[in-house]
């Protein structure tokens, strides 16, 4: 059975100044053990989308449409109690900033013990300690350090602890929201390697949310490129890299410097991300698109299947789009 199925998900933020449609009509699936990358810049809605999978969208955000099914259960229909039993056990979340997510007056080992014993009260104390030590070992943390407090660890180590806490209950799905943005590049590589090895040990699926397209291309099986709340392109990483179809994706790929190439020609995408309170009519990307046609500013393009499990939301790939000016 598919682990995660999202269908036509739409999320609004009802602010005093107006309603922002942060996520519009997003659909995708995820199988057991797969990695999905959500790539996008500020305002793309990727974080909101990630939070919605745990029903953690903050006020004044509201899920206004669509389905989120985990192992066949539509979680949007669950009660608060049922949802709470899923969070942490079936789906876990890793936040960007590990500094503020740990309890400063609790030892690291105690963090793990409390987590295990709260969610699985039938576990004996010995078993819980055993599991905690096992996880710490997989994280690369020396067993003596279980008695240390969070402030005694560096940023990279704290993020490892956060990851450890996230996977401690063997969730089926881990959502990592910009897990390495605040970290240096060497630590980042090690953290991402750690996530990969943990996934192999425990068999979890992962959704990686990042604005850094490079790490998403490197580490994710499937990629969704988001812009202004919508899915613009959805394909496997190899396919996306070889055949980027959406003008935004192409623009993005052409603006990232590749450390292995000498004498690159980089180009930028003109303009700026739209004001989400009043996004452009039609395709949300059209004001910045060099291939924009008249129809793009009038209607919203649908998601087109271009084969090889590759989907694009762009009129360039529809029959009407090809015929129009």
């Amino acid at each position: 059975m598919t682990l995660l199925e999202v269908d036509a998900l739409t999320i609004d933020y009802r602010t005093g100044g107006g309603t922002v449609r942060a996520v519009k009509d997003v659909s995708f699936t995820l199988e057991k053990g797969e990695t999905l990358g959500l790539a996008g810049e500020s305002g793309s809605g990727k974080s909101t989308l990630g939070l919605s999978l745990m029903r953690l969208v903050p006020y004044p955000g509201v899920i206004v449409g669509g389905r989120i099914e985990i192992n066949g259960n539509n979680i949007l229909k669950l009660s608060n109690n049922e949802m709470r039993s899923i969070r942490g056990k079936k789906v876990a979340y890793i936040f960007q900033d590990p500094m503020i997510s740990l309890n400063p007056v609790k030892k690291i080992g105690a963090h793990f013990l409390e987590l295990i014993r709260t969610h699985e009260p039938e576990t004996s104390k010995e078993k819980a300690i055993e599991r905690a030590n096992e996880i710490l070992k997989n994280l690369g943390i020396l067993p003596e350090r279980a008695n240390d407090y969070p402030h005694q660890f560096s940023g990279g180590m704290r993020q490892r602890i956060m990851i450890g806490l996230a996977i401690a209950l063997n969730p089926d799905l881990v959502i990592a929201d910009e897990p390495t943005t605040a970290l240096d590049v060497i630590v980042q590589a090690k953290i991402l390697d750690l996530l990969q090895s943990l996934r192999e040990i425990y068999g979890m699926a992962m959704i990686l949310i990042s604005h850094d397209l490079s790490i998403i291309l490197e580490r994710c099986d499937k990629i969704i490129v988001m812009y202004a709340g919508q899915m613009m392109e959805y394909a496997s990483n190899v396919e996306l890299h070889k055949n980027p179809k959406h003008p935004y994706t192409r623009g993005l790929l052409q603006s990232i410097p590749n450390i292995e190439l000498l004498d690159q020609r980089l180009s930028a995408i003109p303009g700026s991300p739209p004001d989400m309170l009043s996004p452009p009519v039609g395709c949300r990307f059209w004001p910045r698109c060099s291939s924009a046609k008249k129809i793009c500013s009038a209607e919203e393009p649908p998601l087109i299947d271009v084969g090889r499990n590759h989907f694009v939301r762009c009129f360039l790939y529809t029959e009407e789009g090809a015929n129009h000016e």
Partner: protein
Amino acid sequence: MSEMLRAEHLAKYFPVQKSFLEQIFTREMRYVKAVDDVTFSVDRGEIFTLAGESGCGKTTTGRLAVRLLKPTKGKIYFEGEDITDLRGEDLRLLRRKMQIVFQDPYASLNPRMRLGDAVGHPLKIHGVAKSEGQKKLVLEVLDKVGLAPPEKFVNLYPHQLSGGQRQRVALARSIILEPEFIVADEPVSMIDVSLRTTIIDLMLGFRKEFGLTYLFITHDLAVAKYISDRIAIMYLGRIIEMGDKGRLFLKPAHPYTKALLSAIPIPDPKRKRKSVELAGEVPSAINIPAGCRFHPRCPYKKEDCAENEPELVEIEKDHFVACVLY
């Protein structure tokens, strides 16, 4: 002369706050040695990059170069003149020639100042041109950074602009006095990826148009590779490798440089990257390891490394390394 900026054995130590008991019972002061003996020079018209991870001292070095900070040790020369101890009016005159662009476009503009006033403020400070002349210069420079029509932008406040637009305003503010030297401190790190090239291209364009020289600071080696002429890699307050960009990236010499390069993600799923195993994390700048400061983490360390700190030696034309292996 072709040499614009020169730093000699620069050091900057920040005293560490002592706890109450420590203040009573201990005499010794502890310092964060943010910059610890750094020597380099920047030639006129070139882009020289200081690169490294956080805590390596690159930002502090940049601040020292424009004298926003006073060095603890060492000397700075600008166009041949010793500016290490400048103060007062002399320092203010220097500010006309050296400018700095900051990393955070959300923090570098006064939220209560209109953009026109913010960009034109340096003109007022230095008494350049009269009121109408100043207005004209502001409009010109806003146009140059691509904020058109400039008349629309002069009356706006920062919160009405996006991050990329704000950074353009910051750029405009930095060039309005027609300086000769600009320190750019991570100018694109906090901007969306699709907008970075615009800012970078603007900066490159100004170099051509005004003959500017840049000291570029970044942690992103890929950006450094794209924009620099020469580059210096810093670790824990010291330069450990430096030289012509092409040679440095073609044959990285220092073990740390190799580790850094290997860790950078490559936007190509088919390339399999070898991750260089690097032990531990960057130590605190209060307790710098003895000898070569990188030795505790170095996969090639030898006995000598814990005792002697290596100096930069030239291993090929314009390529220097500080490592006992060479």
